[in-house]
């Protein structure tokens, strides 16, 4: 019997109404019934990206953000990060195979740390795949920013009523016409929208059928437990500024044992403490004089 199983059994026995294991397991089961590969995602093929930044412009206009500045991608300039007014950026990297452009945005993890950490579910993983932000729930604690391994959520530091800003995979738009703005406007078909399982097949096909063109790695297949945005690249991902030291299990997994122990401690501790008080009582009765309590 391993530790996690033990905690689960004890936790379930301890009562399903307490904060902890039971509701989360129910949620996990609901997600599992709809396979992650059945939800939507985007495949980014870095061999096809020419760095035109049409996706940046399309994203800004579709989401009511200010138009991206044209001046800041000169050769040698440090890579730009997404921020509270820009949900996606394309960076130019000088690599062993020459210039490679890489788009970055929220990775829409299968098990997102931001959503698991959000105490009001303001950041929320939809059944369809996108991780979205809900204004009426958010209290602006920014724990999502602390927990996200990709640093995707950004915060409006200069507003009295700040929003968390990040790519929403054009969720509202996708419901109407099916394609995120960046994907629809990419002139070179570097971006492909579809179900994650199908995107993985396309990615594998391209890698197998074009020997030498790609490194044999699909970024996002396993990183952080798997993401809905997937990348294939002509060079090692470290060369285009991706984190290559991430766990292959999801980050919410790191807190699972702790959260599962919570109902156990909540129920067992009071009983243990009362028992201890009883046990010390007899000797105390023999010697104690009355004394006021604080």
């Amino acid at each position: 019997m391993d530790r996690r199983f033990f905690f689960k059994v004890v936790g379930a026995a301890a009562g399903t109404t307490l904060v902890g294991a039971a509701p989360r397991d129910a949620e996990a089961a609901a997600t599992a019934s709809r396979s992650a590969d059945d939800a939507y995602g985007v495949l980014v093929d870095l061999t096809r990206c020419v760095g035109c930044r049409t996706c940046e412009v399309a994203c800004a206009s579709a989401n009511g953000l200010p138009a991206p500045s044209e001046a800041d991608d000169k050769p040698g300039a440090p890579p730009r990060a997404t921020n509270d007014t820009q949900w996606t950026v394309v960076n130019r990297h000088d690599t062993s195979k020459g210039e490679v452009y890489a788009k970055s945005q929220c990775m829409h993890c299968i098990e997102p740390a931001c959503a698991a950490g959000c105490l009001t579910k303001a950041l929320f993983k939809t059944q369809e795949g996108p991780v979205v932000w809900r204004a009426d729930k958010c209290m602006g604690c920014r724990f999502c920013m602390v927990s996200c391994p990709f640093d995707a959520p950004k915060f409006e530091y200069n507003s009295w009523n700040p929003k968390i800003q990040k790519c929403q995979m054009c969720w509202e738009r996708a419901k109407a016409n099916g394609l995120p703005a960046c994907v629809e406007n990419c002139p070179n078909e570097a971006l492909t929208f579809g179900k994650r399982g199908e995107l993985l097949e396309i990615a594998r096909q391209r890698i197998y059928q074009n020997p030498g063109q790609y490194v044999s790695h699909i970024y996002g297949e396993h990183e952080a437990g798997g993401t809905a945005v997937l990348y294939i690249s002509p060079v090692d991902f470290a060369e285009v500024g991706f984190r290559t030291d991430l766990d292959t299990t999801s980050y919410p997994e790191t807190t699972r044992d702790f959260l599962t122990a919570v109902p156990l401690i909540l129920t067992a501790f009071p009983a243990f403490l009362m028992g201890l008080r009883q046990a010390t009582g007899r000797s105390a009765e023999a010697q104690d004089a009355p004394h006021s309590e604080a």
Partner: protein
Amino acid sequence: MNAAVSDAYHRRPGERFWPFVLRQFRPSGPLVTPFNVITVGLMLVAAVILAWRFVYGLGSVTNLNQDFAWGLWIGFDVMAGVAFAGGAYVLCFLVYILRMEKYHAIVRVTVLNGFLAYVFYASALLLDLGRPWNVVNPIIGNSFGLTSVLFLVAWHFMLYMGAELIEFSPAIAEWGGFRKLHKVLTALTVGTVVFGITLSTLHQSALGALYLMAKPKVHPLWYSEFIPVLFFVSSIFAGMAMVIFEGGISAKVFADRTGDDVKRSHHRIVIGLARLAGGAMFVYLFLQVVQFVHEAKWNHFEGGWAAWWLVEILGLTAVPMVLFMLGSTRNRMGFIKVAAVLTLLGVLLNRLNLSVIAFKWYAPVHYVPSWQEFVVSAAVLSAELWVFRWVVRRMPVLGGEPAWARAHATQPATVPVVPGAVPAMMQAERR
């Protein structure tokens, strides 16, 4: 008991309540003192900074940015402040669960300290929230983020503040002369203490568990799957060091309000707390060694970060541990006082390392708090000290409870209440 002092401050039988309360708000000492001038100045400047912040956003007064979302207001006010408030649950455990009567004399002041620390530091969280008006969402159920460690922290902070208020409330009842209410509140103590210790165990460790998901961002020397346990154990000695530290100050500043039994037992209490702190620090260091080996930390043990880690682990944990142990076995109060200060610095450094200093150690530009962030933190501390001083000067906290209150002890009538029992209690303490 110094009956003369208590008589002047308690509500006398028959005295009307509101005139009494108004009288209590009259200053009890000189107004223009260095402490008052400095703290009022800090609070006024902080008020302006905070007004600015609520109009122009967090970025207008803090150095927080997209890479460093949490800064001094979380790392110092919440992470370190809550650890320092750990004395309340540890002393409640000693007195109400293990019934170590020796520590009874300081339970009240420690619980008051813990309560005010939570109210001020944890509530300073509101200043850090971008959308503080939504702070009720996790309570009213819009929505319950049951997978979130922060959800647990939020609920436990709230419940624990209530528990500590109930634990302290007999002192308020004694001050206001509410005899019947006092009986009810006193009867609630043990149940509340049991609940409070459980909540503390969970939220002290949960504060550490917040950083579990930040695994790729925290320097490996500070990251460990043991973080929740390390936070819990260190909150024990952080709390003890704080009790020793502020107890030494209170004994001087509030000498006129300190009861005889507190004065008499002060020395032995400090020796006992030092022994406890030393033991907890030994456990902590042992856990540090275990996780160092278990997680093969020597692979990351290099450069300035290794030296910095040793400052925290050896200089500010192992050294004070030895000083606590020497101080308690050889009866050297000087050692214990130095150890308490070093321990407080060590816990502060540990919390800041995890949340700010060793967080994103690879970032090209690091976060350094702005002067405004320091001023607001200092102002929060000042406000707490003002309330603490007001309460200690007026309520029976360091002793001097009215005679009628002594009859409401919760150990229910195992020994009949007789006037001559007080010397017997002191004999029990001497063991």
